[in-house]
Structures are given as structure tokens and as C-alpha cells.
């Protein structure tokens, strides 16, 4: 896993929870095939490792991909938090909804998931878009038909 292979070396400095997380990562590394493929996606999360993966528990956005991805973590240089990496496991069976979302680019789904983990860790929420075209119904001229509001009055 290249750069993230150092995760064991730094784990001791990361505290108990982060070390557990690192061991989780290492365990997952051992399970992968000997030939290393590209495809690691990485984000830097401006929080310490023990907050990013508390007690080695994957945060919810990643948990949805459990079994389908490898995960690695290490402290970012310069006090910039945690570098969280993930990549699809070869021939993984994508669980649940992920199977419908993955399409032909599992790397993109992994990347989006990492961004969600980051948002959750840094802001406490995963940012949602305003209603997209499929959610908002027809756009109609003013004064024609009942306005497609949600019924609240202001």
C-alpha cells in the first residue's frame, strides 16, 4: 500500500483508539492480494486519528462499504490531522445500496464516501444539496396550478 505502509510505525504515537484503527487497517492489508493495485483515495481530515476512527469503529459513511474497501489511517504532517485512505478491494461484493451506486467506477464512490467521512468529522454533518430536479416536481409558471410547496406558511 505504498505510502500508507508506514501506518504501523506511527500507530504507537496515536493513542489507543487510533492504534486499534491502525491495526484494523493492517489486518485488512494482510488480506489483500500480493500484487498492489493503484486506486487509493485519500483525504486529510482536520481532526486527530482518535476522533476520525474512534475505538477503531468506522464512521457511518464508511461502514456502508464494509467488506468492500481497505482502509488505512496515519497522522498528517504539520499537525493537520489525519490522512484517511481507502480503496476498493479487488472483486469485492458491494453491500446494500452501494451496489447500486458504484456503477463502473468504484473509486469515485470510495472518494465520495471519504469526503462524507471528512464532512462528518469536521462539521458534524454530511452536507445535503437543495432539492434536485427529481425531487422538486414540475416548475410551473406563476399563477398556474397550485404551487408545489411543502405546505408551510411563512
Amino acid at each position: 500500500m505504498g505510502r500508507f505502509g508506514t501506518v504501523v510505525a506511527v500507530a504507537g504515537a496515536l493513542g489507543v483508539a487510533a492504534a486499534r484503527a491502525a491495526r484494523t487497517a493492517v489486518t485488512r492489508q494482510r488480506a489483500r492480494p500480493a500484487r498492489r493495485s493503484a486506486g487509493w483515495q485519500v483525504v486529510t481530515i482536520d481532526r486527530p486519528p482518535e476522533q476520525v476512527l474512534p475505538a477503531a469503529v468506522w464512521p457511518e459513511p464508511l461502514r456502508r462499504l464494509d467488506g468492500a474497501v481497505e482502509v488505512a489511517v496515519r497522522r498528517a504532517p504539520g499537525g493537520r490531522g489525519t490522512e484517511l485512505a481507502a480503496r476498493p478491494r479487488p472483486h469485492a461484493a458491494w453491500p446494500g445500496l452501494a451496489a447500486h451506486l458504484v456503477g463502473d467506477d468504484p473509486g469515485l464512490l470510495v472518494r465520495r464516501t471519504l469526503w462524507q467521512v471528512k464532512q462528518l468529522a469536521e462539521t458534524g454533518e454530511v452536507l445535503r444539496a437543495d432539492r434536485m430536479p427529481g425531487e422538486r416536481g414540475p416548475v410551473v409558471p406563476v399563477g398556474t396550478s397550485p404551487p408545489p410547496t411543502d405546505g408551510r406558511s411563512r
Partner: protein
Amino acid sequence: MRALCWTADGELAVRQVPDPELRNDHDVIVRVRRSATCGADLPLLTGQAPGLAAGDVLGHEFLGDVVEVGAAVRRHRIGDRVVVCASVACGACWYCRQGLPSCCDNGSTDPSTSEAEWGHPVAGCFGQPRAAGGFAGSHAEYVRVPYADVGAFPVPESVGDDRALFASDAAPAGWLGAEAGEVRPGDVVAVWGAGAVGQLAARAAWLLGAERVVVVDRHPARLLMARQHVGAETIDRRNADVTAQLRELSGGRGPDVCVEAVGGPAGEHRSLADRFTGRARVPEAVREAVYACRKGGRVFVLNGGVRHVDAFPAGAVVHKGLAVRGGRQHGQRHIPMLLDRMARDELRTEYLATHHFPLDRAAEGYALFRDRPQECVRAVFTPH
């Protein structure tokens, strides 16, 4: 509610759309008092707006009253009159904590889209295509504001709506041009563009101690405004050798700081070959700024319409030892300071609202803004 929408045929029209709703705990809903046109919207009006869908609401420079508050919002209450930063930033990531909220990692609902375009995710923006975050615009009766504790600011009672409105976008953009251009006391500063952002960049340069400020544009009415309201000297680029005149106005040295604030799409007047290959020219203002700037000076590019350009005069940057930077406004950092200056009358911006329209006539306002820039600096819509 009513809102100015992009329609399927690339036109604009006021339509009935669903009311916005709280989607995250840090959201508020704002009842819009004022919402202004901006040059950044012009590329969306060309009929070539990848990422826009029929019914998408435009507009990003606005103020209004808080009417709903999310569960995690701490700084706002229903009834607050707030000006909202046009860009969306979280306030919690490394970039926000460094004072660079326009570089926010978490300002988009799908950071991978702007990653694909710029190499990294950047802050979101209201009323732009989905790649800019997924947030409906403000040319509407109501708008949802994410990260409201970070991006919405109470307006001092003494500051009127038409003045405070420009604290949303134009004023912080102008301020950034002067501040990040490192304007120092005694500097000669040249600003390309006499629109709202350019004039406010010129004003910011004065406030930061510049001794001479020159504004370049091709619209005499805007240049007149820059002279009357900002006290700048002006150059009408239609009948002047801009570089030569700037050299003359700066004792042969060239301006210490050059701010490009032209706005709108770059690379106009492309040759047939450029159109065929999809290549855009270096925007004239950026090129001029690089040539005109004194040795060791600073060039700051504000125009977000500058996308991918070829034939950049990199040699001038090297041989003259220039610092060339760019940026989108950091309103989350600057708006409180700007509102204070507005309250103290140091920053008067209401004159930039040259035209007012009720929301129902917003499409007409955009047409005026686009087609008659010599008259219309900003069209301002009042939805209520």
C-alpha cells in the same frame, strides 16, 4: 414560492418552485429582502450552462430575514436581518481555520465535482450549477443557507438594505483584491474593471493606504462613477494605450499592485482557430496587468470567469519577479469588518444598485445588466 429560474431552453423566467427546507442542522431559511445580479452569472445566460437544470434558481448576493432555524444553529434567531456570504464554507476545516474560507473543503455537497475541475474542492456558491455545491439561488422569496453560523451575519441597524447587500459578495471580493494584493501605504494601485467589484477594490485600496488609484474600463458611465464615488483616476481603454498610461501615472515604474476585476466570461473575441480547438485566450486584462505591473509588484486576479487559458505571459512574471495570485472572496472572514465600515460610512455601496426590479421582472433586470452595462452596474431584485 416564486423564483427566477433557468429554463430548459436557456432562458430565465420567474416560476413557482417548492419552498426551500432545512436540510441540515446548521441551516437557516432566509426570507429574501434584496438579491443582486453579478457578472459571475453572465456565463449562465449564454445558453451554455453545463450542470444547470430547468428550475434551478439563480442568484448569490443577498440579504434577508431569518425565518427558520436549524437545530444546531447558535448565532441566529428568527427575525434577524442578515447578510449572507455568497460562498458556502464550513468554518471547521483546515482551510477555513487558516482564514481561507473560499478554499473550504466542505462547502459542496459533492466535492469530487470541483475536484475534477480544479484539482481540489473549493467552497460552494448559491445559485450556480450543481458542481458549485448544489445550493439554490437567492433570486427567490426564500433561500436555504447552510452553515448559517459561519456564513450569515447580522446587519447593524444603521446600515440600510441597499448598502448591506454588497457585503455579501462584491465588497469582500473587492477587499480581497486589495488585501491579498498587499496594498501598502503609498502604493499606486491599478484596477481593471469598473463594475461593483472593481470599484470596491479601488475603495479598499484607498482604505489600505494607497496614494494613487487608477481604474481601467471601457464604459464611460462606470468610469465616471469610479471618479465620483471612489475618487479614482480613470483610463478609458477604448481610446488609450493602457500600459503606457499606467506607466505615465506611476512615474514610469508601473503600478505596485494590479487588481483584475473585470468579471464575466473570459476569452471573448476568440479567433476561429481558438473556437475550433476550444482554446481560450488569456483575458486581456490579466495580460495587461502582468505587463503593466512594476518589477517585483503584485498582480491579483479576481475574475472567476477566467478558466483555462493559453499563452499566458509567464516570461514577464519571471523576468519582472512578479507575484501573481488569485482568489474568490473570503466573506466569512471579511463581512463583519465590512459591515462595521459600512456602519461608520467608510464604505458606501448603495449607489452600485443602479436599478431595482420586483422579482417578477427579474428576467428583464438580467437582460438590462447583460446588454447595457454602461447603464446598469447591478440590478437588484426585491421579492417581497
